[in-house]
């Protein structure tokens, strides 16, 4: 997928002017947060489950090498194959190689953000294998040549009419604007694809070390048809998804659905443990797991290790005021919202991804709803520091901060300057007490008035309070 992250500002600007997108984003804001809140209120132990989820993931990351070895050994024992991929290119090469061995013409796909991350669809197409997305949202996007704007509701940026138009064009049927009819159409069209596919590719929500199982969680059942009907099932997932036991997986399943869609439980939770057994009448004959790294192993032992806890529920973006205003495509790559602002710089480089950790109000809502309590604002600040240290921040920011630092280290100068600035801004604002335009502050005043400072500076007030003998 093309990286458009450096153009975040321009894309966000366009997104806010886009009336259709804003209408679609309204569905997000009205839906997910409220549903999550209800689900959480029905589970009084939710907070303690979050603590346990955080601690368990930390334990896994502290022992990641050992759990991965155990998982690998058990998959092989079950009759499956494990492939390690350091980069996107490696992963694509491995997957294509399996497809070629099977002489695959078409490949059905369950929803997988890791395959978006590695750009699998384009790669397969370029090499003569046709991928078919089967998740309804992903299918709509594939017909439109579009990409997901959300990690669990990929087509959230579209309205009913966009879907109706795409189906009318590709299915050659009368245009309908009834969502039920549209879904039935997709069901009928994709049924043949499920049956015809040579290979089925799914992701995994978790990998269970104890049993060598992968698990997928879907509401549609598309992932199940994808992995049950073709001769070969390839699971494409990433190294941080491993959990120790079935009981540990269960802890995360309790957290995942409630945090994601606000459901009590997702409709289909499906464990896959290798190819069909002797006597089985259906199921794949070949079972492959491709474990993608793509920068994750370098996060171990660093401040970013906390991010490896992420279970891709989307609660952070569902509650994010920035995501809610500009939508997922503004972020310019695969992972949007707060989790994307932390992950993207790691995967595409801070040089290209530096805009994202800056596009935050630091309201902290993301951390407060995260099922595994990832300190997302702290990690965004980590990237901002990194960017500053590498001199990648814009000149205005660097000179601005340098100027402020010069003043802040010289108290007398600082006090004088702030007193003068306050006086000046008050005069500039006039009677209304609002600044409508000011040199060097266009980034703010072009969009809204800036309230002029009221009363005294902080230092003045502080001094007076101290004198008066009050507690600060």
């Amino acid at each position: 997928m093309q990286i458009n992250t450096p153009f975040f500002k321009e894309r966000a600007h366009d997104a806010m002017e886009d009336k259709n997108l804003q209408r679609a984003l309204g569905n997000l804001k009205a839906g997910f947060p409220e549903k999550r809140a209800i689900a959480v209120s029905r589970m009084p132990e939710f907070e303690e489950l979050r603590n346990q989820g955080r601690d368990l993931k930390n334990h896994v990351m502290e022992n990641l090498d050992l759990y991965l070895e155990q998982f690998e050994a058990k998959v092989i024992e079950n009759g499956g194959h494990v492939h390690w991929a350091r980069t996107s290119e490696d992963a694509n090469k491995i997957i294509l190689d399996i497809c070629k061995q099977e002489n695959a013409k078409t490949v059905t796909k369950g929803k997988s953000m890791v395959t978006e991350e590695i750009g699998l669809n384009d790669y397969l197409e370029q090499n003569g294998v046709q991928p078919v997305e089967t998740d309804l949202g992903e299918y709509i996007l594939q017909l439109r040549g579009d990409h997901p704007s959300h990690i669990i509701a990929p087509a959230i940026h579209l309205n009913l009419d966009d879907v109706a138009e795409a189906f009318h064009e590709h299915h050659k049927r009368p245009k309908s604007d009834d969502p039920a009819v549209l879904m039935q159409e997709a069901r009928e069209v994709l049924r043949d694809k499920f049956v015809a596919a040579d290979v089925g590719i799914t992701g995994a929500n978790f990998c269970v070390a104890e049993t060598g199982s992968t698990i997928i969680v879907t509401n549609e059942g598309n992932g199940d048809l994808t992995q049950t009907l073709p001769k070969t099932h390839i699971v494409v997932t990433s190294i941080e998804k491993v959990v120790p036991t079935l009981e540990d997986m269960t802890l995360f399943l309790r957290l995942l659905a409630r945090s994601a869609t606000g459901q009590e439980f997702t409709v289909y939770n499906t464990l896959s443990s290798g190819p069909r057994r002797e006597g089985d009448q259906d199921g794949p004959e070949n079972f492959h797991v491709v474990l993608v790294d793509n920068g994750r192993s370098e996060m171990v032992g660093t401040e970013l290790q906390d991010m490896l806890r992420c279970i891709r529920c989307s609660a952070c973006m569902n509650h994010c005021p920035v995501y809610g205003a500009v939508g997922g495509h503004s972020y310019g790559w695969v992972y949007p919202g707060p989790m994307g602002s932390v992950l993207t710089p790691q995967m595409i480089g801070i040089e290209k991804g530096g805009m994202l950790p800056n596009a935050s109000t630091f309201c902290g809502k993301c951390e407060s709803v995260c099922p595994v309590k990832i300190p997302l604002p702290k990690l965004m600040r980590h990237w901002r520091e990194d960017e500053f240290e590498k001199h990648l921040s814009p000149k205005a920011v660097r000179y601005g901060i340098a100027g402020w630092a010069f003043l802040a280290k010289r108290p007398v100068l600082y006090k004088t300057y702030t007193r003068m600035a306050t006086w000046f801004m008050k005069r500039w604002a006039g009677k209304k007490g609002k600044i409508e335009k000011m040199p060097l502050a266009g980034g703010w005043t072009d969009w809204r008035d800036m309230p002029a400072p009221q009363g005294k500076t902080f230092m003045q007030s502080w001094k007076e309070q101290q004198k008066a003998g009050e507690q600060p």
Partner: protein
Amino acid sequence: MSAGIKAMSVKQTVAKSRAEIFGNIRRGLGRKGNSGEASAEQKQAVQNRLNAQADNLIPQRAQLPHDEQVELFKAMATEAVAELIELDNIALVPQACADWLKTRHIDQLISASSSEINSLDWSPLLNADVDRVERVAQAGDIASLTSSFAGIAETGTLMLHSGPDSPTTLNFLPDNHLVILRRSTIVGVYEEAWKKVRAAFGGTESGLTLPRTVNMITGPSRSADIEQKLQMGAHGPKTLVIFLIND
């Protein structure tokens, strides 16, 4: 020839990737054992954790006497839009199937071939002109019948697993999925279901070896991918019927 060289190179890619990934992780964790691996104690600690199969926090909700667990199961399954039909004993399943299918003008039932199902007297289906066929599911099948391994009260969830007499396609491909659930197999929480799984498939030399697939199913298929409005019947069954056997 060229295919052989390419296969080698993919193999080498995998080996190189594996070494680099483990190298990075071990370096990141500051592993100090032999050749930079985890120490014997660290390995033992992980093994102990795996062997313990310890429960994490179990919510209060389903920690109830069995009768109340059954009531919770019924409430949660219904909330998930499963259709619940209670029967006094398993011998009534064929008639219940016949009634359900006949009302909907369905004349074929694709059936699992478990001994539980095969030991029943299926003449009520014949009388209703419904064919019962034991095979895997195919595209176009309208209705299927399977047994289940357990019911989980916590969320009204069915647990099924693959095996020679229970093809997995029956659970996903037909438009309507009919499932037999015995009251006695209903448990409170997922953890109790895993204990049943361990009892059935564990205890081998290499620990627990699961069937190819274990399916947890909570209601019929659905999607909200169009404008976040929930529609029932996406790719899996549009209807999930649970015959709850109160024996």
